[in-house]
């Protein structure tokens, strides 16, 4: 019983890291495509930023 609980705790912990990594990865993509103000990115994504409701310029 103790072993089972321990194994369960480990499996729970081991899924949290990839979950967090994916969420951070997703936020980074949204930030770069939607919010970084570098000219090249801004111009390329201009229409999308407006249409998606991001603050654009």
């Amino acid at each position: 019983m103790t072993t089972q609980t321990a194994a369960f705790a480990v499996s729970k912990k081991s899924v949290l890291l990839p979950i967090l990594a994916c969420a951070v990865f997703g936020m980074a993509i949204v930030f770069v495509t939607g919010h970084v103000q570098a000219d090249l990115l801004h111009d390329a994504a201009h229409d999308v930023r407006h249409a998606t409701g991001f603050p654009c310029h």
Partner: protein
Amino acid sequence: MFTRIVTSALFAGAAAGLIAALLQLYFVQPVLLHAELYETGALVHFGGDAVSAHQDVGGIDPLRDGLSILFTMLVYTGYALILIAAMAFAENRGHVVTARNGIIWGIAGFVIVHFAPGFTLAPEVPGVAAADVYERQIWWFATVATAALAVWLIAFGRNWLAWGAAVVLLLAPHVIGAPEPDQFSGPVPTELGALFAARAFGIGAVAWVLTGLFAGHFWRREADREA
């Protein structure tokens, strides 16, 4: 787990993003191009003669529209990664995610990243007055973060303390207020601005329902393949 989230998110984000991009190009882009005629000064609608509401706004621009499709797919892939990470977290706590209830996840996503910030910072057509972009971005991120927490508390909270906190979190950014321009100097007709905001919201809702549906579907499919 990592591969499963990334694979489902790539499929779901690319599919929903492509559909969103095509809808935007058909319904939003003509309004945006029309507004740009006022933004650049090619058209002026006040103080002079009446201007026709029917203008040639140009056709398809392969590079510009191609980039829009690419970037929309990227944005929704980013959203799908966050959404599916949240789905995985919920499943880890005993909630089952399917394509069917994925639709509710999608509606929640729309409320969090479109409706909540857009309620006070309405989707802007080019050529309208606005406050400093960095200040608006900070407000945007803060509003999305509080809305995300609020929606999670509404969905998974079990008592009135959680739901009450959710209400406060949802209202706070709008009671505090977003950065607003000091003067209205936008040259774009209000009719175009209103239509733009309405269409941006409408397509955001469709795109997010599809993101949720596809995310639930591909998440389940990847689970079945692993099983």
